[in-house]
């Protein structure tokens, strides 16, 4: 049994609940325990760091301080949380003045952070700690003929990631282990538009369009993501992309844990909760 501290982040409790259920089920199947962090708070998300530096790092450091007490690696499945926590970890080491201010904020709440917590992405834990071989052994229903566009997104690989920042390969290795066929997806680490989808929608939709066009051009049955924000932009807003550009994309977008759950033969994959319905090959696998 491998044990980790688990930071779900807000998304996994709201818009991305299928990510959490599939994540926890897959973890159970691989003999991994995720212990949810006690009294965690929002990671600060991406934008906040650019607006109120000390405060954003302080709320991020609060999670790290709580995690440090348990002495376990802290797993963040959401790429934005992963980046935010990693960023605070690095900044507190690099900038003593920031650390002094953040330490003051933590002390006011009766907390302290020594800097020892390792922040990990859920994908990293499965592929590196559990290992590709163990994942392959656990497959019960190989994803035969399923062509998968592995979309790592930007926040998981830049700048602190564990995969190549320009040509990420870990999702493709996972797809192959699950019996599926990774398609060449040159935009694997291109930004999806992120939170711009709320504030500057035309820009975000144009970015999503590029990703969807590339996946369609490569004849992918499904796009697999590692991040609730990428998932939301590509899945929930796919219709809006079509409306804006006169395209007719209908590519399902799933979390990598949902594909794992499917290949492991687990009951709850949550794929039926997606906005874009499953493509024929994917639906066939779900039925079979």
């Amino acid at each position, binding site marked *: 049994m491998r044990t980790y501290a688990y930071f779900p982040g807000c998304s996994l409790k709201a818009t991305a609940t299928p990510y959490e259920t599939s994540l926890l089920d897959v973890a159970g199947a691989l003999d991994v325990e995720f212990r949810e962090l006690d009294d965690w708070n929002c990671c600060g998300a991406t934008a906040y760091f650019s607006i109120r530096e000390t405060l954003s790092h302080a709320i991020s450091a609060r999670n790290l301080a709580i995690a440090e007490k348990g002495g376990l690696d802290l797993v963040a499945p959401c790429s934005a949380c992963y980046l935010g926590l990693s960023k605070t970890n690095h900044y507190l080491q690099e900038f003593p003045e920031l650390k002094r201010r953040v330490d003051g904020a933590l002390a006011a709440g009766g907390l302290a952070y020594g800097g020892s917590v390792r922040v990990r992405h859920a994908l990293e834990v499965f592929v590196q700690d559990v290992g590709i071989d163990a994942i392959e052994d656990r497959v019960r229903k190989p994803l035969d003929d399923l062509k998968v566009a592995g979309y790592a997104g930007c926040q998981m690989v830049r700048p602190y990631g564990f995969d190549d920042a320009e040509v990420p390969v870990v999702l493709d290795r996972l797809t192959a282990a699950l019996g599926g066929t990774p398609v060449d997806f040159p935009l694997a680490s291109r930004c999806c538009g992120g939170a711009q989808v709320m504030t500057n929608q035309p820009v975000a939709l144009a970015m999503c369009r590029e990703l969807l066009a590339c996946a369609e*051009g490569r004849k992918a049955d499904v796009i697999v993501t590692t991040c609730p924000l990428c998932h939301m932009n590509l899945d929930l807003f796919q219709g809006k992309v079509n409306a804006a550009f006169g395209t007719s994309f209908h590519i399902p977008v799933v979390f990598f844990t949902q594909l794992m759950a499917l290949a492991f033969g687990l009951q709850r994959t949550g794929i039926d909760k997606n906005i874009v319905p499953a493509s024929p090959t994917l639906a066939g696998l779900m039925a079979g």
Partner: protein
Amino acid sequence: MPRIGVFVCHCGSNIGSVVHVPEVVQFASGLPGVVHAAEHKYMCSDPGQEMIRQAIREHGLERVVVASCSPLMHEATFRKTCEEAGLNGFLFQMANIREQVSWVTEDKARATKKAMAVVQAAVHRVVGHVPLQVGTVPVTPATLVIGGGVAGIEAALQVASSGTRVHLVEREPSIGGHMARFDKTFPTLDCAACILTPKMVQANTHPMITVHAWSEVVEVSGFVGSFKVRIHHKATYVDHQKCTGCGACLQKCPQRKIPSEFDYGMMNRRAIYIPFAQAVPNKPIIDREHCQWFQAGKCRICEKVCEAKAIDYDQDPAGWTEEVEVGNIIVASGMKVMQPTDMKHLGYGRLPDVYTGIEFERLCHASGPTEGHIVCKTGGVVKAGGRPPKAIALVHCIGSRDQQHHAYCSRVCCMYALKYAHLVKEHVPGCEVYDFYIDMRCFGKGYEEFYNRLLREDVRFVRGKVAEVTDAALYPGEDGRMVVRVEDTLVGAVRRIPVDMVVLCSALEPAEGAKALAQTLHMGCSSDGFYLERHPKLAPVSTASAGIFVAGCCQGPKDIPDSVAQGAAAAAQALAMIMKGQVEVEPTTAHVIDDLCSGCQICIPLCPYEAIHRDEARRKAYVEPALCKGCGTCVGACPSGALQQWGFDDTQILAELEGILAAR
């Protein structure tokens, strides 16, 4: 107390506009021992020097201090001035009030005060100076040239033309260097081979030049005037004395699919091979790693077909070593072209038709993989008969002028990109050429004119750094092609430009093994790894090591005209030394005070020039003056103070410190 004269220079406005020179002169004239102090607008000029000579005679000066620029600049000048007036040149001291004062101090009052301190230090120091004699050593009339590219060949030919022996060492199987791969040269578009090949042949047939190809310099000992050089010859397995170069073995070798180093793997060679048709020497070598006889114990076909009986499988695989003696060394060891493999966003190595600049050179070359036709790959293979590209991107500054890689400009990329733009227009009618540049740097003779010519040849110049080369199609016309994403800074928009071929003009880097060679020769490198010249303007082809000169790209990226000019310049310096027959050696070397030396030998391994050995009979350290460069390392390290350096002994240095501190 000796009679001291102090001369303060204005250096035009360099010093005079910051330091109040008359005040410094007045201060100096009040210092103990100073019997004369004066100023001049340009002390290094003829009237300035004459002023010093006259003062020495009139005032009977026994010591001279000149307060002006760095000693690197004019110490030698003023020593000579003193000598001309009958004063030993080492009874002179320079106070640097330009580089160390006026150029780096804004506040005039503080600068003047600082200049006084520096002058006072020099005055205190010069009291303890003693006359030193410049020694000479004889020069062996032979020159070693390391590297057989165009710079090295030029240097070798120039030295040899005087009747002086030259050893030209090249680690590749042929001389010719990078230029041997070129098709055309900018800006005249003349044929590279027509320029280079005759020079290569001339070098190889010159009675005074010994070409050591497939060889490396492994050890250099001795000192200026008489270097002992060990040259390691790698095994060729072919007796080049017997070989007639008929080429029968090359035809019959059954190992046909070995990627050719000369063509960057885009063509194949045999296991017994010459790297290219015009290679010099035009004699084959056997690549042991790929030879069936060496690897599987059967074949020997080359031996069977060789009428001259030149094949020699029994050569020692370790090769052999010879020692030559030379008076000086010219290093022309060249550069390498950066492989942009870690710049993954540009697609090199991932997308089929992305080439580096030098690879594209081979595509343009009649004896390259496509026989000189600019065509796309067929089934992932570079060969003739492919489909011609409809559009080509030439991308400047790959790894150059880039903080992630090299801060420096590689100096040749703008011009060879323009050359390629012209060649594409010439070879592929109707092909669009997009040239992505940051700044167009066309600084040489005829270069700007060449750029203007290309502007009229319908090349699309896009000012902007390419963000990405991708095969992710988005719009009609992009399918199956590559798309260059770039911010066009003149238009002020992000553009997507579909192309079929991309040429990455990647940086020139120090050659493989440049650092090791620098260690062998005790040469310095600048922070980018290129060899350091002694002074960029006063001694551009000299190094800090006497008798060792640099030429070509080993000193920094440069084009063919500059490389050849440096080769010739280095040759002139080498020849001047050889023609004179002797060379002066600085007397400011270290020496051992025998009574103080305990023979502990701490100094011996510290000496970077291997100038110290232990005199076994006397059980004392001994410094060989001809080898000592006066760096002072041993002097600082000696626990008993037995090592002293002429011109830098303890009394002089302490007096200098006292002088500078007393002025506070």
